[in-house]
């Protein structure tokens, strides 16, 4: 299908700034859906609040723009109530890791078949450039005017340790790898998580001497090290670098399957005892 057929053209133009990477990640999601041939009628896309969480509104599916941080909780309700539906969550780095961190951990722990794409622009875009749990140490934000003293989360590590079937990180600069990772995540039964590093030139860039979209892309290119290469490097060389690649790809019991089996078991027992 033509990519435009997956968009609600009557919702355009979008709200994103020039140079923003959100459109690139959104396109990668649509390419993944298209490659898998998923039906628009049986795919639900859920998001939280933030610039990135506006993406589902532009897409022609059943779409649910929820409250800040809670997309995975709503999505869990959709998926558990109707397990045959494909459910995708779109979330920002603040949405997923700060206010929504607990839901992320528990969705991964349950290994519920939801694909989560975290648009990581290392900042709170929608509210004007405050630091997020994924802002690098020493970076600047409107609430980190003297430099961020927090340590950044390795969100992929968190989700992997929480029990997800699939975990990967990519960036919009390395778009082919990111698109493939998203497609693999969508195809994976179980909780699948992709951290998509994306530029916010307007807030992150401006606060951190990366004023233009091109500066930001160059920064991505210089920071990112593919996992295969990183494995051969010593830890010192890797300080300040960001590793992209697939960190988990496992076949594990999936939550809604387990619930389906529970229903069958209970019903059998009720039948036998009556």
């Amino acid at each position, binding site marked *: 299908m033509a990519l435009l057929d997956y968009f609600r053209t009557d919702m355009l133009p979008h709200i994103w700034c020039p140079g923003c990477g959100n459109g690139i990640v959104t396109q990668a999601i649509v390419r993944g859906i298209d490659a898998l041939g998923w039906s628009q009628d049986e795919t639900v896309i859920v998001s939280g609040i933030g610039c990135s969480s506006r993406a589902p509104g532009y897409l022609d599916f059943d779409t649910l723009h929820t409250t800040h941080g809670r997309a995975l*909780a709503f999505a869990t309700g959709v998926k558990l*109530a109707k397990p045959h539906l494909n459910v995708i969550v779109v979330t920002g780095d603040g949405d997923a890791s700060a206010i929504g961190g607990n839901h992320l951990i528990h969705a991964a722990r349950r290994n519920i078949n939801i694909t989560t794409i975290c648009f990581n622009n290392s900042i709170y875009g929608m509210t004007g450039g405050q630091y997020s749990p994924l802002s690098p140490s020493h970076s600047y934000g409107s609430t980190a005017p003297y430099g961020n003293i927090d340590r950044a989360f390795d969100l992929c590590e968190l989700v992997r340790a929480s029990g997800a079937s699939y975990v990967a990180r990519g960036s919009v600069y390395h778009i082919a790898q990111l698109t493939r990772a998203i497609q693999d995540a969508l195809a994976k039964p179980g909780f699948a998580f992709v951290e998509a590093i994306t530029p916010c030139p307007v807030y992150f860039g401006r606060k951190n001497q990366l004023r233009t979209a091109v500066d930001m892309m160059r920064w991505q290119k210089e920071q990112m090290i593919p996992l295969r290469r990183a494995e051969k490097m010593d830890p010192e060389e890797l300080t300040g670098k960001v590793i992209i690649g697939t960190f988990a790809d496992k076949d594990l019991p999936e939550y809604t399957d387990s619930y389906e089996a529970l229903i069958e078991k209970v019903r059998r027992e009720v039948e036998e005892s009556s």
Partner: protein
Amino acid sequence: MNLNKTGTHLFQGNEAVVEAAILSGCRFFAGYPITPSTEIAELMAVELPKVGGRFIQMEDEIGSMGAVIGASLTGTKAMTATSGPGFSLKQENIGYASFTETPVVVVNVQRVGPSTGMPTAPSQGDVMQARWGTHGDHPVVAIAPGSVAEAYTATIRAFSISEFLRVPVILLLDEVIGHMREGVSVEDVQAVEHLERKRPKGSKSDFRPYRDDGSGVPPMANFGDGYRFHVTGLFHDERGYPDLSPEWARTLMKRLMGKLDAHRDVHEWVEETETDDAEILIVSYGSPAQAATSALRQARAEGLRVGQFRVVTVWPFPEDALAKYKGQVRAVLVPEMNLGQLRLEVERVMGDAAPVLGLHRADGELFKPAEILEKIREVD
């Protein structure tokens, strides 16, 4: 309960809620344990899989509220249950359900607050929170049954109202109703009407999820049925797309707030006893109504003209029904297990027509009929 056999069955209040929910077609429950509502989650975990429904214990009450909204959007009747602290956590997403017009039933078995308060003691301290707990003007319905039997029928009505009017319904139990055992009669249960969600007709491509069909309540499609619609907590146009213009905000809010006024017959619920010749009116709701009824009987035996106006649906407050007593009654008594919440509504409605006297306690103790009787004698 076997609805084919007549008679009365013994239930705990929380149990009655679960049975009635399943009877109403509830097939999804998400919750987080908290006294004194926990039995509802426990029983749902037992019962739902038997009927092919789904139960999930979420990581907190915020998540539970989100999950029931998600389930409801797929066309599945959904409920959650909690108490005080958990009710506070649910508020943001209750507002989301109200604004996006997603049917959900939220049970709050009230315990004494504020804060952790007294986890096992009864209270009616969340009455105002049920109305105004989430930010912004919004429609909401709250029902406060006065007995276990009524908790059963109120649960059925809660689903009917929620589904039919696309509004969150808060079932305000209190610890007494939640844990007390009483008989529920099959006939009473059979008498309650079940109302359903209105479904869209016509072509899917022309479907507008928030287009008024004249009733104030737009027909609702399910996620997964090919309507491909957008749901957002932003101000939204008929298509569900964001529209933050002041003109549209006025139009949307008018319909949203107006739909409950237009369908009072669906949600209004008042029980009046001995009010015809009453000079003193007790306005009660929830479990204190039982003590009030005993006090009323004794007062009548003493020849005092006392009546009871028992509010079952507390929000929207039945203001017209109560206003009828302006000019008739000399005084109004409001016994509540809080320091004066619904009394404010009663005062608003009665104005200067009669003094409104509160009997309030927020100490975890129940009202005794004698206390109410004494107050009646005082004002007589």
